[in-house]
């Protein structure tokens, strides 16, 4: 094997951060090379430099013996470097074929392209219909579109940024098959992930990044997940012991909940039923776009449903709006921090008022009590260690992790009976994620019931007492998290509710 890409001393700084600091490593032709690191370790910046989206401050790259410094993605693609993004660059209202055309620099005519899409997608075991609208595809199928778009340009190096975060375990297997086949055909793959088992199963080499620097390299097959995790984190890994859980009285019951999605590409909820007891944390897993947003909206009160389908402490509340539910003790924190859970341009004080008004009585008779509101905001900042110059700053000025701590803190400090959170640690650094999970845990211990909706299975396994899966708008029957195997969960996520309910039986 010969060297395909040789990276020497790449550095890139942003105001206040050194995203990459003197990064050097090599990728061989046809190898699957892992880039391993925690959130914020600098993986994304590094690949963006390789793909020509970001210009390095210093350092050189050599591709196939030639100096390689793409000023734009176009030049990277010309040299055979393609990339599949974590957040797809797809157009929902356009067809598969149109999407693929847009990503190609020289596209054949429609008929020819459709034929090519069919051929290549079948060849690699990723069947696709070129005439379907992206909006009608599942997340896994959308990723195929991205991959096929790259493959049609005969890449020498394919960069994949966290490709499995949106896939079911079965889809992951299919993807790995495709990647191995590509590797056999001589295409090198730069595989970015923090999922150690995957890297161990798939990759030939791994380069580990921590705080922008290369801290280690290894051959994953010769390592354990634990040893790689320690390279990534730079210390000994602590394993959480599962906490004891003694269920209390019924806190929330959902019976036969149906909700038609208003989004033309959304997922409608179908006959969702479950019971939640005091002190319980219910983890709801599943691939994004299977009704997560809708179930949060139905529980938060943003979407009203038939009153009797949601019972809080035995009382029908499905017809209540968000504030009426808050008054009764049902609080929530949606996935999108900026623009849903918090208003971007408003100050932290105003954002504290946003949901705290009712339970904290911040506006008696409609007149806002500024002193009390500021006090509440300051309490959140203090108790939840939100790093901010003050409560007068706009929400959008905070980092993702800090804003998330603020949002979760805002709800927890209102002492809810039931708290529903969607993706509580998405895009949050490890320390903040740990403190958020800790806060949710404590809330449950204090007697509240908690629902955690997440796509991070590890997180759900760590935090939840009971577990259910949302697939195509249906929820499997919740069952104790202890003793569930990853295969069972995988089948549940793929929509096989029969398996899910069978496990229960």
């Amino acid at each position, binding site marked *: 094997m010969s060297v395909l890409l040789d990276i020497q001393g790449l550095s890139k700084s942003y105001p206040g951060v050194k995203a990459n600091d003197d990064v050097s490593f090599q990728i061989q032709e046809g190898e699957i090379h892992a880039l391993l690191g925690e959130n914020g370790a600098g993986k994304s910046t590094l690949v963006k430099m390789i793909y020509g989206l970001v*210009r*390095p*401050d*210093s350092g050189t790259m050599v591709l196939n013996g030639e100096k390689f410094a793409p000023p734009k993605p176009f030049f990277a693609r010309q040299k055979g470097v393609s990339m599949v993004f974590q957040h797809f660059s797809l157009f929902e209202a356009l067809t598969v074929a149109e999407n693929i055309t847009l990503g190609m620099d020289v596209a054949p005519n429609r008929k020819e392209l459709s034929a090519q899409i069919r051929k290549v997608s079948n060849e690699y075991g990723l069947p696709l219909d070129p005439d379907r609208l992206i909006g009608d595809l599942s997340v896994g199928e959308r990723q195929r579109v991205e991959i096929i778009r790259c493959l049609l340009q005969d890449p020498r190096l394919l960069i994949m940024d966290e490709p499995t975060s949106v896939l079911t375990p079965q889809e992951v297997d299919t993807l790995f098959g495709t990647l191995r086949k590509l590797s056999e055909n001589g295409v090198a793959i730069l595989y970015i992930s923090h999922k150690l088992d995957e890297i161990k199963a798939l990759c030939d080499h791994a380069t580990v990044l921590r705080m922008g620097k290369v801290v280690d390299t290894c051959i994953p097959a010769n390592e354990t997940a634990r040893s790689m995790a320690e390279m990534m984190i730079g210390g000994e890994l602590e394993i959480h012991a599962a906490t004891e859980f003694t269920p209390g009285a019924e806190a929330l019951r959902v019976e036969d909940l149906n909700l038609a999605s208003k989004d033309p590409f959304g997922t409608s909820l179908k006959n969702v039923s479950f019971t939640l007891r005091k002190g319980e944390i219910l983890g709801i897993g599943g691939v994004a776009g299977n009704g997560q947003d809708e179930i949060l909206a139905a529980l*938060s*009160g*943003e979407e009203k449903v038939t009153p009797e389908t949601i019972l809080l402490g035995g009382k029908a509340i499905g017809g209540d*709006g*968000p*504030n*009426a539910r*808050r008054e009764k003790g049902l609080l929530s924190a*949606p996935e*999108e921090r900026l*623009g*849903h*859970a*918090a*208003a*971007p*341009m*408003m100050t932290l004080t*105003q954002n504290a*008022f*946003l*949901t705290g*008004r009712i339970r904290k009585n911040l*506006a008696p008779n*409609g*007149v*806002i009590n500024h002193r009390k509101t500021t006090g509440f905001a300051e309490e959140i900042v203090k108790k939840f260690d939100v790093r901010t110059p003050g409560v007068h*700053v*706009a929400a959008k*000025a905070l980092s993702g992790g800090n804003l998330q701590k603020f949002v979760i803190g805002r709800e927890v400090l209102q002492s809810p009976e039931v708290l529903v959170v969607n993706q509580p640690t998405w895009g949050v650094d490890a320390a903040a994620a740990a403190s958020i999970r800790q806060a949710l845990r404590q809330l449950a211990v204090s007697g509240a019931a908690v629902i955690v909706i997440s796509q991070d299975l590890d997180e759900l396994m760590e935090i939840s007492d009971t577990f259910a899966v949302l697939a195509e708008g249906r929820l499997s029957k919740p069952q104790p998290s202890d003793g569930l195997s990853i295969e069972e969960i995988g089948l549940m996520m793929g929509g096989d509710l029969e398996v899910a309910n069978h496990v229960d039986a």
Partner: protein
Amino acid sequence: MLMLEQRPQPSKTMLYLTPVMAVLATMLVGGMLFWAMGIDPFRAIYLLFVDPFVDSYNLSQLFVKASPLILIAMGLSIGFRAGVWNIGAEGQFIIGAICGGAVGLALWGSTGWWILPLMALAAALGGALWGLIPAVLKIKFNANEILVSLMLVYVAGNLLAEMVQGVLRAPDGMGFPESRNLGRNDPTALPDVFPALGIDAGGVVMLILLAMAFFLLQKHALGFQIKLTGDSPRAARFAGVKPGVIIAVCLGISGAAAGLAGMFELTGAAGKLTIDFPLGYGFTAIIVAFLGRLNPVGILLAGVVLAGTYIGGENAQFMLQLPAAAVTVFQGMMLFFLLGFEILINYRVKRMRRAV
């Protein structure tokens, strides 16, 4: 190369500085335009921006123009804060004048202190209802309020034409398409309060309403909901705000304010309804609202500045032969500059070194 870099936090300084910069830039570029037209730029700028505030006659006209502008802009700004775009204030202004005028004309011959308040009530109600048409169509049918409210301006204009030729025509007017003169009839004429600045009873009401708007936006939960809706509609829904209520409240308030302004104009400066009654205040008020940063205090200042350009423009017309349209150009330019400078609130200009 110059690059824009996002500020972590919107700049308060720029928030207040940009309207001033916009006015200064308008003076500069507008002066160049006048110079190109063969008009002495210094004299023209003086007439438009200084003379209205120093000459005692001009001062006595200041709030005659500023009051309706400020009143309408105050209403509009509440909607703009929520992202509800009422641009049909001109129509609501006309309907307010028609409704208020109709009440005054129906009571022709009666006397009593209650006549003017009753007319004002009718005007506010009429304006509010006219404003609620786009609100209802938006809430029920998702129809774009910008286009509907604007179309209703033309409908209101035609309605006015019909009224002054029909039921509201002065019986002793020799067939001219105009109403009786309400401004020369004691019970329906708006009393002066502070003539040196041109503040009449309408001006006083305007100031009171402006103070109420300030309270609403700064202190009241409804004001918070309005601002929240404008910043992030989804977060507003999450906070329990009903979007329909906000749309109706915003269009209702702005319609009522514009309607009231129309009735004050009718019983004050104009006196009677004619086809030429609307002067475009409903559109200029949009500029006032933006120039005042959608903030009641800012709107007060901006209204005074824009009123000055009207008064100065009229003077410049016969002193310098400045075309009437030049003032409109001036006002449009001011809004352009303001919108352009606004980027400095959220971004700063940074000199970028070309990467190697």
